[in-house]
C-alpha cells in the first residue's frame, strides 16, 4: 500500500528531505533526552495542579492527575520509537530472508511464501493486531509482536521483487560458477544491491508502526501505565475535551509530526539514493 504512495511523491517538494530529517532528529532527540531529563518525573501526580493549561512551570500543562504533559510526551517518544524499531526489526529480520529465499529458490518455495504473504495482506492488519493483543493481553511487548508480524510480508515481497532483477545479472552467474550457494549469493551480492530500497521501506514501515502503536494504545491494548504513551494520552484526553482541550492537541501533534517526518525522510532518501528506485520494487 505504501509502495504506491511513494511512487506518488514525485519529488514535488525539495525541502522534504531536510524537513523530514529535522523532524526525525527531534523525535529521536526527545526520546534520548527522556532518559536523562524530563521537566518532572513523568508519572508523578500533583492533584492540586490538575488540568492546568500550559504555563511557565508546566510548558504543555498538566493532565487530570496533575502529571506534566511535556514529561509524559518525552517518555512517550521513547516508547513509540522502541515499539516501532523492534516491530520493524522483526519484520525485516524475518521478511528479508523469506523474500531472498523465494527469489533464488523459485518454484514451489516461491509460490508458498508469496501466497502466505498474500494471505497476510488480505487480513486487515489492525484487526489482527487487536486480536493478538487481546488474546495475549495488552502491553508493549505484545503490540510489538502484533505490529512486527504484519511487517514480515511487506519486507518479504519487496525483497523478492527487488532481488529478481539482480539475480539476472552476470555477476550472479560468476558467483554461481565460483561455487557459491544461494544463501551466500543473497547475502554477499544481492542484498547489498537492494539495501537502498529496503532502508527506504524500513523508514516508511517505521512511520506506520508509530501510527499502529498509537492506535492500539488508544484502544487500551498497547503500552500500559505507568509507562507513558501518546495513544493512551489521547484516549484519556477525550473524556476531558471540554475542560482541557490542550490534552487532546499535543500528543496528536507529536504523532503527526513524527509520522510526517519519517515519511518525508523515506521519500527524500529514495529520491536521493537513486531516482530510478521510484519505479522499482513497489509492492
Amino acid at each position, binding site marked *: 500500500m505504501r509502495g504506491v504512495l511513494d511512487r506518488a511523491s514525485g519529488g514535488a517538494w525539495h525541502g522534504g528531505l531536510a524537513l523530514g530529517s529535522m523532524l526525525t532528529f527531534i523525535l529521536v532527540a526527545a526520546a534520548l533526552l527522556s532518559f536523562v531529563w524530563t521537566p518532572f518525573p513523568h508519572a508523578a501526580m500533583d492533584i492540586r495542579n490538575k488540568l492546568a493549561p500550559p504555563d511557565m512551570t508546566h510548558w504543555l500543562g498538566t493532565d487530570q492527575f496533575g502529571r506534566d504533559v511535556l514529561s509524559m510526551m518525552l517518555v512517550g517518544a521513547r516508547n513509540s520509537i522502541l515499539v516501532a524499531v523492534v516491530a520493524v526489526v522483526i519484520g525485516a529480520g524475518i521478511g528479508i530472508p523469506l523474500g531472498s529465499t523465494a527469489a533464488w529458490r523459485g518454484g514451489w518455495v516461491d509460490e508458498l511464501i508469496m501466497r502466505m504473504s498474500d494471505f497476510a495482506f488480505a487480513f486487515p492488519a*489492525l484487526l489482527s493486531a487487536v486480536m*493478538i493483543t487481546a488474546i495475549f493481553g495488552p502491553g508493549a511487548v505484545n503490540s510489538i509482536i502484533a505490529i512486527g508480524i504484519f511487517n514480515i510480508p511487506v519486507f518479504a515481497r519487496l525483497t523478492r521483487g527487488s532481488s529478481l532483477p539482480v539475480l539476472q545479472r552476470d555477476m550472479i552467474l560468476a558467483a554461481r560458477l565460483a561455487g557459491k550457494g544461494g544463501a551466500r549469493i543473497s547475502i554477499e551480492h544481492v542484498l547489498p544491491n537492494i539495501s537502498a530500497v529496503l532502508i527506504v521501506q524500513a523508514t516508511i514501515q517505521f512511520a506506520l508502526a508509530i501510527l499502529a502503536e498509537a492506535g492500539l494504545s488508544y484502544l487500551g491494548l498497547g503500552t500500559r501505565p505507568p509507562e507513558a504513551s501518546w495513544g493512551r494520552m489521547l484516549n484519556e484526553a477525550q473524556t476531558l475535551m471540554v475542560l482541557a482541550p490542550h490534552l487532546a492537541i499535543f500528543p*496528536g501533534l507529536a504523532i503527526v509530526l513524527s509520522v*510526517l517526518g519519517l515519511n518525508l525522510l523515506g521519500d527524500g532518501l529514495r529520491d536521493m539514493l537513486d531516482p530510478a528506485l521510484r519505479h522499482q520494487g513497489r509492492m
Partner: protein
Amino acid sequence: MILFFVRRLFTLMLTLLAASLVVFIVLELLPGDPAAVILGINAEDDTLAALRAEMGLDRPVHERYLAWVGDLLRGRLGRSYTYDVPVGELIAERLPVSLPLAVMAMGLATLFGIPVGAWAAARRGTVGDTLVMATSQLGVAVPNFWFAILLILLFSVRLGWLPAGGFAGYDEGLLAGLASLLMPAFALALPQAAILARLTRSAVLEALREDYVRTARAKGLERRRALIRHALPNALIPVVTVMGLQFSFLLAGTIIIENVFYLPGIGRLIFQAIAQRDLTTLRDLVVLLAATVVIVNFIVDLLYLWLDPRLRRGRG
C-alpha cells in the same frame, strides 16, 4: 478469461479456508475455558461439564472446527455468550451503522481523492500542486482517531453543530441517522482520500506520458479533454486496485473510529467481543470480515479485467 475467473475463484476459496483455520487455531490458543468464563469462578464441576457438553467443547478439536465451518457454510452463525442472542442478530442490528459508515467514508475519499489528484497532475509543478501534495502528505500522517477528536472539538464542543458521539438511529428519519455518521465518515475518509489523491496524481502523470495521449493531443484534442477522456480512465486502473485494498483498511478503521464516537457498529462489537472473551461472536465476525475483504478484492480483480481490455485478451 474463464480460466482466469476459475483460478481466482479457487484461490478465493483457499484463502477463506486458510482464514477460517487461522482464526480457529488462534482463538483455540486463548487461555481459559469459555465455559468457566461464562459461569464464573464459583461454578460447580458438573454444571461446568454440562455447559461444556452443551457448547460442544468436549469434542475433539478437528470435529469442532468442521462443525463450525459446516455451520458457516450453511449460513448458520453461532450464539453469543455475552448477549445470549444469535450472532446473526447482533450483526443485523449493527450493520445499519457500519455499512453506511463504510460506504460514506469510501464515497468521501473517492469524491475528494480522485478529482484532487487529477487536478494536481494537470497542474504539475504549480503552487496548487505543491499544496495538494503537502496536504496529502499531512493527511497520511494524521491518525484517524486524532482527526476524529479534533472534529469533535471543533464541531461538537466549540460550534455545537453535530453530536459528539452516539448513534441517533433512523427513527427520526434517514437523515438524522446519517448525520451522526458524518463526522466518523470524514475521520475514516481522511487518510484514504490523501492516499487516493497521491496515487491518482502519479497515475495520471504516468498516463499523460503515454503514446495514446500524445496521439490524442496530436489529433487536436485539447489538453483538458485528453486528460479526462484518455489519461484518467487508464490511470484509474491501479487506483481501483488500491481502493479494494483500502476497503479492508476501512473495515479495520471502524474498530477505532466506532470506539471514538461510541457508535454501536460492527467494529465496536468486535472490540467488545474481545474484551468480554466472547469467542463465538469473535470467531464468526472475524471470518465474515475476512471473507468480505477477500470477496471485495476478487470483485476488484474482475473490475480490473473489465477496465483494461488488454488484460482480458492476455489471459485468454
